[in-house]
């Protein structure tokens, strides 16, 4: 049962092959059996899940369910869940039982999905390996000595090991696509503004975007149908029609123009990973796609610009954690400054502190123009690169990550090396474009992701392009051994 996709499980529920309660119990058992190894969940909400499953069974019986009714899902622990612990991977929120639901959670609830629990993540989504979590690192199910990627590492590892059919993630610089690639699953970061950020704990507000992680593009389409849409609670939500993302999955892609940016295949890319990506491109050629060589000349500036914009926004967003209204508070503060400093000093881990300090420095008097304003100008240049490219091509393809999953601890103490594992994903966030990662093969038994980037609001096209590849390949059906 656990190898089935959402589409297959939804059919099974309707055929009466199993009930949602049976399905939910089966997945909860898998979590209980395997998650000591993976550490992909911070909270398992068993009682709530079984209650939601029973309600879903009633809805299905009455015949008014959606495709997601009765389907178990996991939510990244960055989404506020009313009455359920929401830690954001931080000690700061170790005791934070959210008093309201994120819009994404409300939407999953309205669709009748069953939440198994909250998944592990890098602290405040700052990390590319899931090692900055206060709740311990997540392990990659393909090789438990390696990282699952981050920051949505718990979601990716749980879906890859088939502990849950699908999960939510968020992507500020690659945090859906990179872990999807490293864990061999399908992940989609939608256009900025497509999915509501309300109740999604903010890291860098002009970059953050929620999206789905699943086995297949078809499942990602089903999930995005529920997650996307305008929300008046999010001031940057965009009021744009949400198409049925499943309706165009089977469109032919003959004549599709695929741009290959030369900067994504240079010396920074592992040669074996490059071969796998090229083989995937060849598959697209067989499907009738046309390959166009393009250039995104400012690619090398994406990481530098990001490490001003994201920390600047993070230092501002994370100033709300003050030990006064919610979250961690230090013992016996002697005055207000001591209360702030010790609550924050104890509540945040080293990577979060580094980014808050970089942001504080970049925004401090006398440095604003040299850092933040400069980065915003460079951001414009990066965005213009994509605009010009999309005048020539329909989608852009390349590797999601420069290498396969690395060893736990390998990059943990070297922030710069860690940051460079996002060289191919960060520019997409700066431009606000949609991007996907799909399984494209293996190097030494470890999964490789193919990244597909589209123009604004072209999620349907990306899902279609990904789905067509998954009709002629079976990489997305491969699951790690040891989690039967």
């Amino acid at each position, binding site marked *: 049962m656990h190898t089935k996709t959402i589409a297959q499980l939804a059919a099974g529920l309707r055929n009466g092959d199993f009930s949602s309660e049976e399905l939910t119990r089966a997945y909860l058992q898998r979590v209980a059996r395997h998650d000591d190894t993976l550490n992909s969940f911070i909270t398992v909400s068993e009682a709530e899940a079984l209650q939601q499953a029973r309600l879903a069974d009633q809805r299905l019986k009455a015949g008014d369910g959606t495709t997601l009714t009765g389907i178990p899902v996991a939510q990244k622990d960055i989404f506020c869940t009313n009455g359920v612990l929401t830690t954001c991977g931080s000690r700061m929120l170790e005791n934070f039982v959210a008093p309201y639901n994120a819009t994404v959670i409300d939407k999953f609830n309205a669709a009748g999905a069953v939440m198994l629990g909250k998944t592990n993540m890098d602290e405040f989504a700052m990390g590319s390996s899931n090692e900055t979590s206060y709740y311990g690192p997540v392990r990659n199910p393909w090789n438990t000595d390696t990282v699952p990627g981050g920051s949505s590492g718990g979601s990716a590892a749980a879906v890859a090991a088939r502990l849950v059919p699908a999960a939510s993630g968020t992507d500020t610089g690659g945090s859906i696509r990179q872990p999807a690639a490293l864990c061999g699953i399908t992940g989609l970061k939608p256009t900025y503004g497509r999915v509501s950020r309300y109740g999604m704990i903010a890291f860098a507000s002009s970059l953050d975007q929620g999206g789905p992680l699943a086995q297949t593009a078809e499942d990602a389409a089903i999930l995005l149908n529920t997650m996307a849409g305008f929300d008046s609670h999010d001031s940057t939500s965009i009021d744009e029609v949400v198409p049925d993302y499943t309706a165009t999955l089977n469109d032919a892609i003959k004549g599709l123009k695929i741009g290959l940016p030369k900067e994504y295949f240079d010396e920074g890319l592992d040669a074996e990973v490059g071969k796998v990506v090229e083989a995937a491109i060849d598959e697209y050629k067989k499907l009738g796609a046309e390959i166009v060589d393009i250039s995104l000349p400012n690619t090398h500036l994406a990481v530098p610009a990001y490490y001003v914009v994201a920390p600047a926004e993070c230092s501002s967003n994370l100033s709300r954690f003050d030990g006064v209204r919610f979250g961690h508070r230090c013992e016996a503060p002697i*005055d207000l400054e001591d209360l702030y400093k010790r609550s924050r000093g104890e509540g945040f881990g080293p990577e979060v502190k580094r980014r808050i300090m970089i942001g504080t420095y970049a925004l401090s008097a006398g440095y604003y123009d040299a850092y933040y304003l400069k980065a915003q100008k460079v951001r414009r240049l990066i965005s213009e690169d994509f605009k010009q490219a999309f005048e020539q091509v329909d989608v852009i393809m390349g590797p999601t990550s420069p290498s396969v999953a690395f060893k736990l601890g390998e990059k943990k103490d070297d922030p710069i090396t860690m940051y460079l594992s996002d060289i191919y994903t960060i520019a997409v966030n700066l431009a606000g474009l949609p991007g996907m990662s799909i399984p494209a093969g293996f190097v030494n038994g470890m999964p490789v992701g193919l990244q597909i980037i589209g123009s604004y609001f072209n999620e349907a096209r990306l899902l279609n392009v990904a789905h067509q590849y998954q009709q002629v390949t079976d990489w997305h059906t491969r699951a790690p051994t040891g989690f039967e």
Partner: protein
Amino acid sequence: MSLDKTQVEKIAHLARLQIDPADVPEYATNLSNILDLVAQMEAVATEGVDPMAHPTEAVQRLREDRVTETDQRDHFQAIAPQVENGLYLVPKVIE
């Protein structure tokens, strides 16, 4: 760009972060390395380029000025570290 111990301490103060004095040298090294990475931007001419604050150039939406929120003080204060009579308690600010 290299930050010294004093600068790191000042930034930590501005950010209201307590840093263990033993960790300051490591922060100084890491933050300096990050600023070196960021400095790659300096090589690019950006005169006349419009700064980009928002990916799709959207502007702030306006809405009618009316009350949309209900009073949920007790609900929200249930998760506060210390409250009394509906007020958040902090250490004495004025002597």
